[in-house]
C-alpha cells in the first residue's frame, strides 16, 4: 500500500518535472515565425536576436502605462490628469516633431522624398526630426547642431535620454524633465520604433533574416541597418539665397510647405508665436515685401537661421536644416508667397 503510494508520487513528480521542462522548451523560438509575425516585430528586437549590441537606452519590456504617460507628455506637455507641471509653457514636442514615418522608403530619407510623402499623407512639414524611429537611431543632435548648441550637444550625441532632456530645456524652453518623465517618453519612443515591415525588405531578405534569427549574424545586422539611417544628419543652409532669373519654383510644393510648415506654428489661434498669420493676401504681401530686405523677417533668413530665445520672449523659431527643407523647396516657398501676394 505504502510502496504503491510512494511509486505513484514519484511518477507524479516525474511527470511534473518533465512537464515543466516541456513548458520551458515550448516558448516559441523566434525563428519559427510566419512572415506576418516577423513583419510586426520591432527592428530593435530582431537586431538583438541577431546578437547585436543593446543600445544604452534599451528597454527590455514596454510598459503600457509608461507609454501612455509618455504619449501625454509629448502631445500635451503634461499628464492629462494634470498631476505634474507643464514641461514648457511655450511649446509641446509635437510643435516641432512629427510622430509618424515621413518617407516611404526609410533608406531614402531625402528632403525631396519627405516632401513627396508629406504631401501625399498631409504630414506637417517641420524643422525637427520625427519621433518615429528615433529609438532606432544611435546618435542625436548631429552635424551642424553643434554650431547652434555647442558643447551642450556632446552628452546627447550617443545617449537618447540626454537628447530628450536637452530638447526639453533648450528646444522647448522648459524645465528639466524628471527621471520618471524621461523614462515615460523613452517608453513611448519605443512604442513607435521601426518595425520590420517599415524597412522595405524583399522576400529574400526576410527569409534571410528568419534563417539567422537566434544566431550571431553581423552580416544580417548590417543588411538590416542598411535599410535606414542611424542618425538624422543636419546641415545648416545659407540665409542669403540668390535666385537666378531662370529659376522656377513649384507653387504646389510651396503651398504645402507654407500650410503644413509655417502655419503649423504661425496659424491664428495656435498660441505658439506672437507673430500669427493666415493664408490671406495681407500676410503674403507682408512676407513678400520683407523678401527684398535681408531683414530678420525675410523668409530665407528666418528659415535658415531661425530666431533665438530672449528673456521675456522665450518662444523662438527653430531653423530648417537643408535635410528638412532643401534649396529648391525654399525657392518653391518663395515662389508661392510671391504668387499669392499679387
Amino acid at each position, binding site marked *: 500500500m505504502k510502496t504503491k503510494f510512494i511509486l505513484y508520487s514519484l511518477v507524479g513528480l516525474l511527470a511534473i518535472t518533465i512537464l515543466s521542462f516541456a513548458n520551458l522548451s515550448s516558448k516559441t523560438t523566434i525563428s519559427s515565425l510566419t512572415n506576418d509575425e516577423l513583419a510586426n516585430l520591432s527592428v530593435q528586437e530582431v537586431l538583438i536576436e541577431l546578437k547585436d549590441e543593446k543600445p544604452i537606452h534599451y528597454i527590455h519590456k514596454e510598459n503600457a502605462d509608461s507609454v501612455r504617460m509618455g504619449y501625454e507628455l509629448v502631445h500635451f506637455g503634461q499628464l492629462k490628469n494634470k498631476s505634474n507641471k507643464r514641461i514648457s509653457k511655450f511649446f509641446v514636442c509635437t510643435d516641432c516633431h512629427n510622430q509618424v514615418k515621413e518617407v516611404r522608403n526609410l533608406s531614402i530619407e531625402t528632403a525631396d522624398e519627405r516632401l513627396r510623402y508629406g504631401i501625399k499623407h498631409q504630414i506637417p512639414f517641420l524643422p525637427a526630426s520625427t519621433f518615429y524611429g528615433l529609438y532606432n537611431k544611435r546618435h542625436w543632435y548631429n552635424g551642424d547642431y553643434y554650431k547652434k548648441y555647442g558643447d551642450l550637444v556632446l552628452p546627447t550625441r550617443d545617449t537618447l535620454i540626454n537628447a530628450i532632456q536637452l530638447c526639453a530645456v533648450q528646444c522647448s524652453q522648459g524645465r528639466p524633465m524628471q527621471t520618471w518623465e524621461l523614462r515615460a517618453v523613452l517608453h513611448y519612443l519605443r512604442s513607435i520604433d521601426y518595425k520590420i515591415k517599415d524597412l522595405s525588405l524583399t522576400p529574400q531578405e526576410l527569409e534571410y533574416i528568419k534563417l539567422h534569427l537566434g544566431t550571431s549574424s553581423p552580416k544580417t545586422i548590417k543588411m538590416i541597418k542598411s535599410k535606414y539611417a542611424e542618425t538624422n544628419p543636419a546641415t545648416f543652409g545659407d540665409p542669403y539665397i540668390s535666385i537666378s532669373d531662370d529659376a522656377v519654383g513649384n507653387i504646389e510644393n510651396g503651398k504645402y510647405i507654407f500650410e503644413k510648415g509655417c502655419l503649423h506654428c504661425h496659424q491664428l*489661434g495656435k*498660441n505658439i508665436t506672437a507673430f500669427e498669420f493666415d493664408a490671406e493676401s495681407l500676410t503674403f*504681401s507682408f512676407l513678400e515685401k520683407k523678401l527684398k530686405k535681408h531683414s530678420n523677417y525675410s523668409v530665407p533668413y528666418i528659415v535658415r537661421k531661425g530666431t533665438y530665445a530672449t528673456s521675456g520672449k522665450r*518662444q523662438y523659431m527653430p531653423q530648417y536644416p537643408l535635410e528638412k527643407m532643401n534649396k529648391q523647396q525654399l525657392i518653391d516657398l518663395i515662389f508661392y508667397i510671391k504668387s499669392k501676394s499679387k
Partner: protein
Amino acid sequence: MKLTLTTVLVILGLTTFSQEKIWNTFEGTRVLNNHSTEMLYKHNLEIIIAHKFGDIAGSNGGFDNFFGFDNLADVRFGFEYGATTNFDIGLGRNKGVNQQTQVIDGYAKYRFIQQEKNGKPINLTFVSSMAFVGRKASTDSTSIAYYKEPLERLIFTNQILVSRKMNQRLSLQINVGYHHRNLVTYNDVNGMIFTGGVIRYRVTQTFGLITEYNHVWNRVKATGQKNPLSVGFELITGGHNFTIVLSNGRGINENLFLSNTYSDWLKGQWRIGFSINRRFKL
C-alpha cells in the same frame, strides 16, 4: 424626397463636424477704449499701459499746453489674464477723470460664441466690469464724489458685444449694455442704457484704422455729458500692439468714459491717447 434627405444631411454635417474657428476679429481685447469680443489665450497675461492727454485745442489746449501733452487726462495700468480660452479676468488702476479719481477697476469676460468658417456667423462676448473710486470723499455736497458710504463709490458696466470678421480686412462690432453709478449728481440718472459700434479696417498686415462710438439713450442733456467718439489706428508687431487714438472721452475704462465725458469734438476738446500691450505666457 432626395432634397429633404440632402438638407438633413447638410444640416447634420453643419452641426456635427467641428468647424474651423475664426480668430483675430480684433487685434486686442480692447478696440480703442471699450472691450472687443477678442479674448486672451489661455494662460496668457497681458499688461496694458494706456494714456490719454489733455485737450489738443479749445480753451484748455493749444500751444500753451503743448497740445495736451502737458496735462494728462487719464492713465491706466491693466493686468489681464486668460483663465481659460473663453474666460478672462482683469484688474486695472486708473488715474481717473474729473472728480472720479484713483479708480480701481476689475472685470470678468466670457465668450459664448466664437465665429466659425462655415458655422457660427458671429462672436458673442459678455463683459461685466466694476470700478471703485478710491479718492478721499469730497466735502462738497453737490459733488459726484460726496461719498457717505463706500458702496456709493461703485460703478458698474455690463455689456454684450457681438462682432463679425467680414473678411481679412474688415471687422464690425456692436454692443449694448447697462451702465450704473451708485452715486450721481442730483440732476443725473444712475442707470444708463447704451449702444455702441465699431469699425476696424486693416490696411496692411501691421496697420489698421478703427472708429468706436457709444451712444447713451437716456442721457440727461442738462448734465452736459457727451457721447464718446474715438478714431485711431493700430500698429501690430509681434508681442506688442500699439494703438493711437483721438477721442473726446478722457476716461480709458468704460466705467469712466461712458458717463464722465464732457468734452466736445466740435470745440476741439479731443485728445491723443495711446496704449501699449505686452503679452506673456504663464
